[in-house]
């Protein structure tokens, strides 16, 4: 049956989705944080045909005890990757539980300029209490308070992206004006816990608004472009996706594939000796490349895309690249991104009108 084509996203943080993934990585631990390694994983994923790369992050180091692992900030890695790739979209995870939305807005808008319109943003939360003492800020206590900080923060960031109209820079030599100040806007945001004045210090991003991804149960649907939906089986994913209320939905899929050296089951069992691969209520495929391709084929009628979380990048990415993605592209079950297009274009999302320009035009029409 021919259905819609999926867009494929890949989470590339660390050595893989399993907390002990580094033990099966094809390199020693001290190479994980090297620029060569960061660039190589991104280049491999771009060549494989992924539309979007995501980079997990948080104030606290990933892993625990003997599996504690270093991690470079996702925005810095994303910017580095943007300059060493040309087609693939890049979305760092940035939590807003404690961060300054003004800085986050500047960083992400800059990432979109640097990547010439290939940037996204995965909104997340700092759920662990220790994060408050990392930031030196009062604890944001409880799920409701964290959701409030995400909601207010995303609103501020989105307002700031629109606080410059696209044509604010006029370079009027005759009048000596670089800017038309009427095309810049104070956002005057007032939330539950803080206010932000604006306008931004970075001009409007090339995409107008970056592609914003998040969990629909944690961020209001009207603030998201893509809902990242959980669910242990197709029925659960279908239910979550249809309730999301966002322009696009991506299913979260954890994967471990058979390789020439070991079956997927054996690879998982090997890592489970060191740490558990905790169940986050997501689809999980442990098995053959063909089985994964079949599962993804079925997901076409349920969601617009998938985000894959490989057990170990160095083992699973070659299998994805060699077997799974070509299978999907041959059958038009998934789309490869094309050069010289924005991430929004790859996702079939329009470039949004500027909220302030639209308001001003309405005012003028009266």
């Amino acid at each position, binding site marked *: 049956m021919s259905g819609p084509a999926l867009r494929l996203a890949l989470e590339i943080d660390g050595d893989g989705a399993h907390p002990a993934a580094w033990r099966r990585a094809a390199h020693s631990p001290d190479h994980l944080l090297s620029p060569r390694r960061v660039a190589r994983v991104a280049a491999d994923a771009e060549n494989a045909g992924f539309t979007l790369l995501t980079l997990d992050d948080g104030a*606290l180091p990933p892993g625990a005890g003997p599996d*504690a692992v270093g991690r470079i900030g996702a925005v*810095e890695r994303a910017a580095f990757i943007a300059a060493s790739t040309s087609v693939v979209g890049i979305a760092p995870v940035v939590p807003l539980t404690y961060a300054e939305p003004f800085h986050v807005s500047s960083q992400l808008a800059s990432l979109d300029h640097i990547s010439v319109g290939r940037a996204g943003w995965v909104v997340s939360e700092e759920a662990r209490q220790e994060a408050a003492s990392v930031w*030196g800020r009062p604890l944001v206590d409880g799920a409701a308070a964290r959701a409030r900080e995400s909601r207010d923060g995303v609103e501020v960031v989105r307002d700031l992206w629109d606080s410059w109209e696209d044509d604010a*820079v006029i370079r009027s*030599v005759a*009048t000596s004006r670089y*800017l*038309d100040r009427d095309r810049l806007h104070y956002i005057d945001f007032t939330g539950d816990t803080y206010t932000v004045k604006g306008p931004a210090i970075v001009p409007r991003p090339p995409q107008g608004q970056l592609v914003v991804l998040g969990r629909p149960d944690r961020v209001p649907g009207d603030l998201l472009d893509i809902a990242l939906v959980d669910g242990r089986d197709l029925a659960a994913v279908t239910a979550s996706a249809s309730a999301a209320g966002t322009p696009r939905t991506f299913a979260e899929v954890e994967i471990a594939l058979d390789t020439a050296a070991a079956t997927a089951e054996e690879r998982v069992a090997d890592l489970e000796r060191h740490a558990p691969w905790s169940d986050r209520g997501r689809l999980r495929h442990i098995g053959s490349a063909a089985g994964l391709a079949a599962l993804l084929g079925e997901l076409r009628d349920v969601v617009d895309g998938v985000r894959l979380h490989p057990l170990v990048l160095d083992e699973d990415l070659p299998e994805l690249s060699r077997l799974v993605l070509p299978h999907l592209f041959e059958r038009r079950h998934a789309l490869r991104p094309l050069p010289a297009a924005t991430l929004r274009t790859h996702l079939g999302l329009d470039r949004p009108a500027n909220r302030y320009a639209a308001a001003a035009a309405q005012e003028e029409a009266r």
Partner: protein
Amino acid sequence: MTRTDPLDVPRPDAQLHFGVFFQGVNHWTVWSDPASGSQIDPANFRRVAQTAERGLFDAFFLGEGLRLREVDGRIHDLDVAGRPDAITQLAALAAVTDRVGLVSTSNTTFNEPADLARRLSGLDLLSEGRAGWNVVTTDNAWTGANFRRGGYLDHADRYRRAEEFLTVARALWDGWTDGAVSDSAGAPAWAAPDAVRQVRHQGPQFDVDLAPTLPRSAQGHPVIFQAGDSGEGRDFAARNADVIFSAHGNDFDDALAFADDLRARLRAVGRPEDDLRILPGTEIIIGATEEEALEKKRWIRFQQVTPQPRWVSPDCCGASTSPAATPTDRCPRRTRSSPRTTVPSARGGSPTPAKSSPNGGRRPTPTDGRCARPSSRSAPSAAMSAPRRPWRTSSPTSSGTARSTASTSRRT
């Protein structure tokens, strides 16, 4: 003063360090010139950084301002505004350069140490030890209106905060012992179990308790730059900085006096007097002949003047570390500290310090809303007949002038 014989210096073998500021946001950029190009296009940042690297510059700098400048409560519209976040842009440049230093101007008042120290560590690791941090502070509530933290720090407190900030940042950068991360694939742990030290700090400004997330870079810490000029600012630099940007690059004796003063302060805090690199701001205008360079200078000066009020404010920026943006972005009453302009000719001969124009050749600039007090004096209007653009080469940098910083040669 002028030195005509390049060998008539106390240490003829002394070497200079050169850095270059990407211009953009300030009054220097002649944006009306077609060669000035886009101030946000990543290709321009890449070109300037790669050109600097090819020219063996030590460092490429980006400034920062956390609120758009205003005049009388309205957004200042005459100069370039809008630029990328410095660390984010530099992380991208780390991927397309190999040797040049990447220095971010980042504010201690409106950041938190764990976050900023980690971002700088990331830049340092991605560039394999090429990161620098130009430490700046802000003392106005006006900028704070963009932050959840909000609020106002008075002048003394912002230095205290900056100093405490650096203390925490250094503890984080030193949180992992060297060689902490395993270099063998079959190691029992990713990092040695006792290699990461928890950082606990309780002070008037910060109360944090955390495990640093990153190992040390190839250079240990990012290089600390600072641009203090008040007594307090110079003391801050003497205690904390590796490099100081000096605004005393306009007059040789003044530059030496500044260097002597800094060295005395270094001795006073127990540091060797050559422990701090001094980089005075210098503007370089290049022409095929000296005459052409001088003509170009006149043209650039004229272009840098636009009709706007002159800024006078007794409480403005007088002793700030570096108020709104780059260390060059200061209030006009400090004209004495305007950069030295040298006009080298492409045919050789020694660089000749040019005569300063009446206000040091600087167009008055607003630095933030607290400075916004126009006087009755107006600069010439752009309607005046302008000198014609006297040369036809396209400029190698975004502004028609290259601004760089160079360290003074040590006086023996």
